[in-house]
């Protein structure tokens, strides 16, 4: 039963084929069996899961259930879960028991989901391979020699290996979409401001956004219905109510105008990814869509601008980790400065420190205009590029990543190589747009099948359209149903 989508599980639970408790026990035993291989979970919350499953079963018996009641879920370890260890995959927070719930967690709890545990990730979401975790790397279920992508690598691997029905993730520069592409599943990043960031440990506040990592677009819509919408605790969360994302899933794609960015088909794109993309576009054409090329002339600058804005915001966001009120404090500090410096240097890993340093530098006196202001100007140009493109098209479709999952350690030696992995996803965060990655092919390489993802980008707050387009694609293809041999 663990292989089924949330929509299928929900129907089975409704028909009484099995209880949430039985389903939860099944997932827990799979986690016990396979987590040693994939390292997808940092913390497994067995007791909490069984208690929530019992409660969900009782709720169902009373007839007070919704589509997510009793569905086993995993939360990226960036979301605060009250009285549960919330580490952000950092030594800094390895002993941090959160005193409160993130809004996303609160809403999913209210919907009746069952929390199986907290998934592994790049430390403070800074990475594209899940290799920066203090708790060790996550392995890709399609090929354990390869990375699952990052930063939401644990969530993606857990969904792909059926160690949960669905998972939460966060996406600052591609952290939901890239691991979804690498693991052959569906990853959805809503518009900035669609989902509350309260309780989601901040990396880059103006870019971070939570979203579902799931086995289908329909499952993503189910989770979106539970978590999207205004929250008085987050000033940057928009005040307009979210629509019912299930309601439009089956709308026809007849007349849909799809744009393909010329710049994304240029040099650097792997042949296997390009052919999968072309095949997917054919499918959309067969469903009544028209395809045209669009221009995103400044997209090549998105990585540069991102590596100013994200580290700058992060450098301040991570100042609170000082060893005073919670988290790691070094042993026997000789004075205040020693406490700060050693707690932070021992508590943070090297990628996190590197980004703090870059951000600190970019904001420091004399460099602010050349770096920070310049990056924000580029950010506007990138946003304008999308605005112009969307004058002629309804969605933009391109590759999620230049190629399939790479090997552990392959891109560790040079941070810049690693940063360029996110070349197609980053611009979407800078512009605040909704984006998603869906599986669109498998590339066989040395007897291993590796998933290929394509990226769909929508207009501001046009999530429903993206989910509709993805769902229609998945109704007519079966790439999303492919599973690795675990």
């Amino acid at each position, binding site marked *: 039963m663990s292989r089924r989508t949330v929509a299928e599980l929900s129907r089975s639970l409704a028909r009484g084929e099995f209880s949430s408790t039985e389903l939860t026990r099944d997932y827990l035993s799979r986690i016990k069996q396979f987590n040693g291989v994939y390292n997808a979970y940092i913390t497994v919350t067995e007791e909490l899961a069984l208690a929530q499953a019992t409660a969900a079963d009782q709720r169902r018996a009373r007839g007070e259930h919704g589509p997510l009641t009793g569905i086993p879920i995993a939360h990226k370890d960036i979301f*605060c879960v009250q009285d549960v260890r919330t580490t952000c995959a950092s030594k800094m927070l390895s002993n941090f028991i959160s005193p409160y719930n993130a809004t996303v967690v609160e809403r999913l709890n209210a919907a009746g989901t069952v929390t199986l545990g907290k998934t592994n990730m790049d430390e403070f979401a800074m990475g594209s391979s899940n290799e920066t975790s203090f708790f060790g790397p996550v392995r890709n279920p399609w090929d354990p020699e390869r990375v699952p992508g990052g930063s939401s690598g644990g969530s993606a691997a857990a969904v792909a290996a059926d160690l949960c029905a669905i998972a939460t993730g966060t996406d600052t520069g591609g952290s939901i979409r890239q691991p979804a592409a690498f693991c052959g599943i569906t990853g959805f990043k809503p518009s900035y401001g669609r989902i509350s960031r309260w309780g*989601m440990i901040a990396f880059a506040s103006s870019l971070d956004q939570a979203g579902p990592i799931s086995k289908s677009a329909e499952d993503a819509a189910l989770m979106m219905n539970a978590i999207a919408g205004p929250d008085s605790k987050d000033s940057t969360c928009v005040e307009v109510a979210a629509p019912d994302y299930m309601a439009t899933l089956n709308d026809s794609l007849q007349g849909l105008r799809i744009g393909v960015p010329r710049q994304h088909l240029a040099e650097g794109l792997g042949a296997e990814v390009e052919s999968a993309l072309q095949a997917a576009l054919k499918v959309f054409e067969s469903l009544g869509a028209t395809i045209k090329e669009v221009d995103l002339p400044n997209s090549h600058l998105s990585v540069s601008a991102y590596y100013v804005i994200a580290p700058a915001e992060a450098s*301040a966001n991570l100042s*609170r980790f*000082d060893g005073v009120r*919670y988290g790691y404090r070094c042993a026997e500090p000789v004075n205040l400065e020693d406490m700060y410096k050693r707690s932070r240097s021992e508590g943070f890993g090297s990628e996190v420190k590197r980004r703090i340093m870059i951000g600190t530098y970019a904001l420091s006196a004399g460099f602010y205009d050349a770096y*920070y202001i310049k990056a924000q100007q580029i950010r506007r140009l990138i946003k304008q590029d999308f605005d112009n493109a969307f004058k002629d098209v309804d969605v933009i479709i391109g590759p999620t990543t230049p190629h399939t999952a790479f090997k552990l350690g392959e891109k560790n030696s040079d941070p810049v190589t690693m940063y360029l992995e996110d070349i197609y996803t980053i611009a979407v965060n800078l512009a605040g747009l909704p984006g998603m990655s869906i599986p669109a092919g498998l590339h066989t390489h040395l007897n291993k099948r590796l998933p290929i993802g394509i990226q769909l980008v929508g207009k501001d707050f046009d999530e429903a359209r993206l989910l509709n387009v993805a769902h229609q694609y998945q109704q007519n293809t079966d790439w999303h149903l492919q599973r690795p041999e675990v």
Partner: protein
Amino acid sequence: MVWETVIGLEVHVQLDTKSKLFSGSSTTFGAEPNTQAGIYDLAMPGTLPVFNEAVLRMAVKFGLAIDAEIGRRSVFDRKNYFYPDLPKGYQVTQLAFPTVGKGSLQITLEDGSEKVIGITRAHIEEDAGKSLHEDFQGLTGIDLNRAGTALLEIVSEPELRNAKEAVAYLKKLHAIILYLGISDGNMAQGSMRCDANVSVRQLGAKEFGTRTEIKNINSFRFVERAINHEVQRQIEIIEDGGRIIQETRLYDADKDETRSMRSKEVANDYRYFPEPDLLPVVIDEAYIESVRAELPELPNAKRARFVSQYGLSDYDAGVLASSREMANFYEEVVKICGDAKLSANWVTVDLQGLLNKSDLDISQSPVSAARLGALIGRIKDQTISSKIAKTVFEAMLGNEQSVDEIIESQGLKQVTDSGAIEKLVDEVIAANPEQVAQYRAGKEKVFAFFIGQAMKVSKGKANPDQLNALLLQKLKG
């Protein structure tokens, strides 16, 4: 060499809100340590700020009171530095786009002349927590109850020219803040704190001298002392051929000196940037007008009205309007007794003298406006004389009796019976033949002696007008 002092003040005013600037934690003063520090105030990971409406309203109110430009679009920034009482490692403040822009404040100097002091800006920011250094075996204890409380930092232009002007400016600011009801202005509790930027230059010089910033000045008295001390220190250094170092100095009230804060001298780079967790605050005309409608009558307007409505001198009106409570007290007294000038005298001289002597505030006055009004009423209707009134006033301090009860029980009622007064006059004339002879010989100054004697015998109760007339008549007799 003649030196000119240049002073600019940065005044931090703690806004009197129920909850903090960006969180729903209470702001009550004096609570047990860290009992008012919620998860946002503690900078728990994942927590976010939401802006308190009352803070915006108070800031705009202040802006309108000093005729300032109101920022239609204000932006919060992060100011980054590490300090244990700053939980997030940055302070949320407003750098480039403050809520209150350029304004001005009119102050009254000692010679009675007026001077307008420019206010550069007033911005909203978070307060820090407190570090406690005692009793922890060489460690420091951190209390974050105050962390995140809303402050309005009011920055003046460097247009103050001596310590007394600085004090006058501060007092005027204090009055306006209390008038507006946006802070309790309690300097001892830190609700109003002042940093002074001080420099000296040769009189007539165009360039400013190098300035120092004096922190931690927590009373009006200390402002004057700290500035005077610092000015003297700077002049001495320059006259000895030295140079002033731009630095932050701490005023030590116990030793009456300023000393360098060496620990803060390490060049700070605050790396300001727009706070991404908050959006720009946009204010429209309707909002500003709704705040304007709530503005109370301000000191200058009140003073002008006191002159025109009550016929007071500009000076008296100014004294009475200097605080909202004093002005309200005064107007209540007038309402009860109906005599504006007499009320002004009593409030500014007798009552104020009493308050000064016992170091009390008008709100702590041992005599209520109602009782003082009643007392003045009895002067006005001639039940007692002004002189006797002072006796009654003294008596009012010691008991809760009404003015009439005091007059009655102590037999202080003025004698107006002409028969009784005539008898009194006769007695005095009979008892002092020598002085009668002198008077009648043309030494008219002796008249005062008779008045004094008659008052003494009547214990001050004789109606002075009647006594005067009768005595004159009898002596001429």
